[in-house]
């Protein structure tokens, strides 16, 4: 069965500093990989996704993520954090062969941004 681990429950970062959120997955083949963000009072918004091809993917809001097959990782990065990036971030895996394309999520990482 597929699983996703986000080792960091909380991360505090200063505004303007870089941010990296870790995600490790377990899946028997190359999965579909996603990062979602949830701001307070909002639904989950897709930041970026990886299906195949270039292992460095660009997303919205200046985020990028790198798929590393050898490490089963899909870490999310942003070079310079803005106060509006304070939110909860979720890594997710979608099974390629499943009929329904259901998502398996990690536990989430809450990001706090210090002025």
């Amino acid at each position, binding site marked *: 069965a597929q699983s996703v681990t986000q080792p960091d429950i909380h991360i505090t970062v200063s505004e303007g500093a870089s941010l990296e959120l870790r995600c490790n997955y377990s899946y028997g083949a190359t999965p579909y990989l996603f990062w979602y963000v949830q701001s307070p009072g909002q639904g989950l*918004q897709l930041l970026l996704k990886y299906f195949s091809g270039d292992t460095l993917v660009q997303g919205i809001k200046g985020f990028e993520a790198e798929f590393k097959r050898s490490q089963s990782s899909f870490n999310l990065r942003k070079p310079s954090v803005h106060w509006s990036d304070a939110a909860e971030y979720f890594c997710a895996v979608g099974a*390629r062969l499943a009929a329904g*394309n259901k998502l398996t999520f990690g536990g989430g990482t809450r990001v706090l941004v210090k002025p």
Partner: protein
Amino acid sequence: EAGVTQFPSHSVIEKGQTVTLRCDPISGHDNLYWYRRVMGKEIKFLLHFVKESKQDESGMPNNRFLAERTGGTYSTLKVQPAELEDSGVYFCASSQDRIRGGYNEQFFGPGTRLTVL
């Protein structure tokens, strides 16, 4: 274009009562998913509709949960009777028809926060 909407945004009920959550997907989206996040845990899949049919309900926790999607439009998730461990945030998502060999983005609603006292 309106996104996925969910009603109510919050619900507080007592143990043993019944609650019905509603999800309106994006118009034209045949796929509708329910997920749940219990406090401190990860978001977990509950079930998946394709139009009005249940495609996968492997994540439904027990028979106190009943999901319907009459007419293939909006969906309801009823919890009867509610227990303390049902507290959490219930998310709904929708997507278009699945591209053969591909993957359609799931668009999420804001969730319904359910508190069972």
